[in-house]
């Protein structure tokens, strides 16, 4: 019994210790931002590997998700004779929820795991240590550019996801199922609010961008420098950041759309 209590205490302490380390790291990453802004090339390289390389999976998934929304929405709405509101349903679902959330989940799997593995391996092969000994701060040189890249990429990817999804819904709803094209676009334009819907969606994806990239970078930087340690860190990145995204999404949705 006492052993179990002791174990519980030790685990709790470890969790808080990790949380503490994660926050200290976050602080140093933020402190490094000015020096990265002065060296846009570092940032551009990371924007490419974190953002541009995630584009394909985002576009393809966005199109499929949009198509499913178009199909399901049509089946549901036509029973009530409101198939002309399909555009509204597709656009609101995407912009408010699916766009930011699914993008963040895909991003965690595609870019987050890559970030963790890369940083973890750099640590395991003493590249980070080597930089320190060359008087180069690995946080400023390696971590901050990656963090900024994730922070910038996520809202853009989510916007692309939603836009492509709307096209997917259009393709199925208007193209295949015969919803009136004018109604699809006009109702969408009338009902989707720039501030309430689009802007709130952007806020969500910014928050998810920070959360996922922070978790990915911290897991890599804090990984045990062995192959097993890196593999476990990569798994943790995907699991923790997915859970964080879903949890945060609920909180944000409650704050933004709770009183509607």
């Amino acid at each position: 019994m006492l052993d179990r209590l002791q174990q519980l205490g030790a685990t709790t302490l470890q969790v808080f210790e990790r949380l503490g380390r994660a926050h200290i790291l976050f602080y140093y990453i933020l402190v490094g931002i000015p020096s990265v802004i002065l060296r846009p090339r570092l940032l551009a390289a990371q924007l490419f590997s974190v953002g541009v390389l995630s584009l394909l999976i985002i576009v393809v998934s966005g199109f499929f998700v949009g198509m499913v929304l178009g199909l399901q929405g049509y089946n549901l709405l036509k029973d009530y004779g409101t198939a002309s509101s399909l555009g509204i349903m597709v656009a609101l679902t995407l912009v408010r929820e699916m766009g930011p959330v699914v993008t963040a989940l895909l991003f965690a799997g595609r870019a987050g795991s890559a970030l963790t593995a890369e940083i973890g391996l750099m640590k395991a092969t003493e590249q980070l240590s080597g930089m320190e000994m060359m008087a180069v701060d690995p946080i400023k040189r390696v971590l901050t550019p990656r963090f900024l890249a994730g922070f910038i990429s996520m809202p853009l990817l989510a916007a692309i996801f939603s836009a492509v999804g709307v096209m997917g819904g259009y393709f199925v709803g208007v193209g295949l199922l015969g919803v009136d094209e004018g109604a699809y676009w006009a109702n969408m334009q009338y009902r989707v609010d720039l501030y309430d819907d689009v802007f709130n969606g952007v806020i969500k994806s910014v928050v998810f961008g920070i959360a996922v990239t922070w978790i990915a970078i911290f897991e890599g930087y804090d990984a045990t420098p062995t192959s097993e340690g890196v593999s476990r860190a990569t798994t943790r990145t995907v699991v923790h950041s997915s859970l964080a995204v879903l949890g945060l999404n609920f909180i944000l949705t409650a704050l933004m759309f709770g009183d509607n």
Partner: protein
Amino acid sequence: MSQQDDSPLVEIRGLRFARGDRMIFDGIDIDIPRGKVTAIMGPSGTGKTTLLKLIGGQLRPQEGTIRVDGEEVTRLSRSKLYALRKRMGLLFQSGALLTDLDVYENVAFPLREHTKLPEPMIRDLVLMKLQAVGLRGARRLMPSELSGGMARRVAMARAIALDPMMMMYDEPFTGQDPISMGVLVKLIRTLNDALGLSSIVVSHDVQETAAISDYIYLLSGGKVVGQGSPDELGRSDSEWAQQFLQGLPDGPVPFHYAAPDYAEDLLHGHEARRR
């Protein structure tokens, strides 16, 4: 240099360092003279690499002082520590090359990070450093295409890119074939003499290290157990030094890891386990 030339470059006094419950250094004193090659030798697991990390300020000791060129490493602020590190080169056992950059960019890395030199000058400097280690022709290779010995030579070129005052080598000879071993041995000595460096070689390869070092410290069990020039140590009557230098399997460092009595263990060990 801020200190007089006859003062030691690195002065370690009363150093104590423990990892968890394990005491790694238990009050050691070491002087690293200027312009010489000093070797730190000892069996694996005596904390030789840890010592380099302590000198480089990557670890902090629990007790004791480490002065490098007159500056107390343990008390330096982050920015002063980084300024001091620009004058130190550390060669990691793995080489620690940046795997996403080619050989040329690896050597150029410290120059690009710390100087605003124009590109043609960086090119000249990089090629000079690579020429010194004999790898000017390998400049476009990626680290994954290099052999272990070549990777260490590239790392050497990178470590001398900023013309440091001292070089630290962490197990430079481990896992090398005889030829690349010979190359590294020669390079450490010639770089030291040609560039006026002070070098610290951490190693357990007795012959190679003794051949190039001016002074040797033997470490074991957290203490300095012998020191002197290679000749003096060879003549020393310390049993420990003789065991280590001649590679005897048994002696003060026992062949057997600490264990309960053998016969007792075989006959009654299973009872203990059952309990």
